[in-house]
């Protein structure tokens, strides 16, 4: 599979401060890469470098195999993007905005525009001025604008800002459809991991300008296996059975970390000692927790180094 977007050791400084350190990742066709990191981690800067909005100090960015430094026009031919906010001309109508953009690419038909207007659900308001739109509507218009040139790379910077839950669901479905049916490569950034968890194929975590991990959702979720919650009739003397990282919870519940093989022995031991067990459930750690642990781990390493 060919990488639609590829970053190779990209570095960026603002003045003396290094903002990005050797950023490398790639997005293949049909992949949705969730670009996750806290605010200020360098998500937007990375996206701006990819789109040529800021200069790359060192390293390379390839889009469809074209280096954006040397071959910018061709590289951008099949890119759709929303950076920071949807930036439409407020004094024009939604339709006028779309027509402006359509004029900048070859052969975009009127039908294509109408189709997209329908797709993002702005049909009734498309001739209103954008200044009268809500943030959510502007976001939808921005998505229509980004899709006008039938891109094979979509770069979306926090596109869920301002969308209501329904809008987020719609966007999610749309992106999945684009990725699976049209083989579009999608880079989507967010500080909110929960939003991306359900539909991204890959996750790339950035913190303080460094990529901490890039892997598939499945691998990340695998980390969260191995913790169980058990409800007992009481918690007297329970401490003697718990390990260091195990926890007592409210309502006579405990949380324990055990390998799959160990958990059966553990339950048996409790039963042997006259505890009654009402329920045992595997705790599904959210991606968010896995994510926080990654960042935490990184921080620990750092503090150990000092």
């Amino acid at each position, binding site marked *: 599979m060919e990488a639609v977007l590829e970053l190779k050791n990209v570095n960026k400084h603002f003045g003396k401060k290094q903002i990005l350190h050797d950023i490398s990742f790639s997005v293949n066709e049909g992949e949705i890469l969730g670009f996750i990191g806290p605010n200020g981690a360098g998500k*937007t*800067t990375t996206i*701006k470098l990819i*789109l*040529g*909005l*800021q*200069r790359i100090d060192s390293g390379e960015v390839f889009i469809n195999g074209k280096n954006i430094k040397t071959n*910018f*026009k*061709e*590289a*951008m*031919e099949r*890119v759709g*993007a929303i*950076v*920071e*906010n949807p*930036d*439409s*001309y*407020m*004094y*024009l109508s939604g339709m*006028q905005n779309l027509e*402006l*953009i359509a*004029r*900048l*690419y*070859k052969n975009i038909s009127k039908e294509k525009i109408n189709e997209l207007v329908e797709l993002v659900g702005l049909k009734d308001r498309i001739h209103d001025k954008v200044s009268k739109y809500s943030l959510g509507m502007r976001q939808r218009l921005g998505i229509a*604008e980004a899709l006008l040139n039938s891109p094979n790379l979509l770069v979306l910077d926090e596109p869920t800002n301002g969308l209501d839950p329904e809008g987020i669901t719609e966007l999610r479905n749309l992106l999945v459809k684009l990725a699976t049916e049209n083989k579009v490569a999608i880079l989507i950034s967010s500080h909110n991991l929960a939003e991306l968890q359900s539909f991204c194929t890959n996750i790339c975590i950035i913190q303080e300008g460094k990529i901490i991990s890039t892997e598939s959702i499945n691998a990340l979720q695998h980390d969260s296996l191995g913790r169980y919650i058990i409800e007992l009739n009481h918690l007297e003397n329970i401490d003697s059975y718990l390990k260091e990282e195990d926890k007592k919870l409210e309502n006579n519940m405990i949380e324990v970390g055990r390998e799959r093989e160990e958990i059966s022995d553990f339950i048996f031991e409790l039963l042997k000692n006259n505890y009654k067990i009402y329920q045992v459930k595997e705790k599904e750690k959210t991606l968010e927790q896995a994510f926080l642990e990654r960042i935490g781990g990184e921080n620990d390493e750092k503090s150990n180094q000092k």
Partner: protein
Amino acid sequence: MMKNLIKNELFKLSHRTETKVLLIFAILVTIVLNFMNYYFSETNENSYKKQLKSMIKFDEDMKKSADNIEDKIYYYSDYEINQLKLKYPLISAETGYINQTISDLAEEMYRNQFTNGINSESYLEVKKEYEEALQKLENYDWKQDINEEIKANQEVIDVLSDTTSTSSSTQTEIDYYQEVIRVLNYRLKNNIPQDGSNASNTLDEYLESLQAYKMMNKNVVTHQDKIALMEVEKALNIGKYELDHDLIKDQGNSYTTIAEELLSVASGQGFMIMFVAIFIASMIIPTEFEKGTIKQLLVKPYTRTEILVSKIIATILYFIGYTIFFLVVNWIVVGIFAGFNTIKAPIIVYDFGSKTATQVGLIPELIKCFLLVLPRFLLTMFIANLFAIGSKSTVLAMFVGLSLNMSDFTMLQKPIAKFILSNCWDFNVFANGGISMNEYVTLTSSVIVVVVTTIVVLLLSNIVFKRKEIKNQ
């Protein structure tokens, strides 16, 4: 594909509130200025009559309170003359006669009355003369006066010709008086009394330039002398041409003509189109930065240079469109106030080299004037644009553009003057062999300065725009 970028820029420009306001502003400004010019012009009959009435009232009061003879003479005669003027239209042979002859007589009469007494011989003599003049006024035949004047001038010529010494200076004198007679005959033939009309004033001005030329030292030394001589020669030759070709006709008494106003707009003398040029050039890039829309534009498959060039071209096209719009507005508004036939006023162009005048058509002359002043507009726009890119501030860019245009270093008589942009970017100065008021500023130096500055400014703009990073919000 660049064409579409330019199309988009023009589309955006024309849909902005600011540009719509500027269009309405152009109409309002033109109407207000022309209304004021019309109403307060010296040839406005209504305001003239109003003014006369208030002056009469004032004279009446002053007649009573004046305590010295000079004041008394002035207010008594002024009162009388103003009463008289009230009876005749402002632009009329009668008013001309009152101003030139009767007012002097009135003053002389009152001088005699107050100094020599009401029974003095001198007073009675002038009084008789004055009354005769009033009589004459009632059935005023201005042609008779002109004929008398012709006779008087002919007599002067006869005397001059009789003198045995036919030196060149006497010949100049004779030529002068012959030209005066020619003007007087012209008045008779074309029915132009000395009535203060535009045609009459043009004839008077021609005679003034003749006289000035006669008195002038032709061996000029300084640059300023040279300019003065050239200007007088110009007035003289244009006047002569107009006489030769019967061009001084009754062009009404309007404060201006459409032709004159349009030429002044096209040669960049007004503030409005300069303001628009600076405004558009200053805002076309910063507004995209302010609203973040620049990101949208820059991620399209175009190089930054293409985007910059499209914006500059759109600015120029919009400016030219606005100028045409402004010309049309002026044509209509001036037409309403000054009369639509004033578009037919002849346009005479003078060539300093061959010292000849020629009549030209309005449209070609408008285009020529506009093209000659275009370097000034273009450079102003380019410089404002450069500052706009650098600072992302419309206000700062406009300040720079306006300062450049408001500053005037024409009189800086030092060699450095030739490097000052505002001294060289308006090539109307050099049109038809003209020279700059500044002796150091020549056509060649101006061309070099303008071309070099243009290239440097455009290259710099491109570099700055290409290096511009879109900072995070």
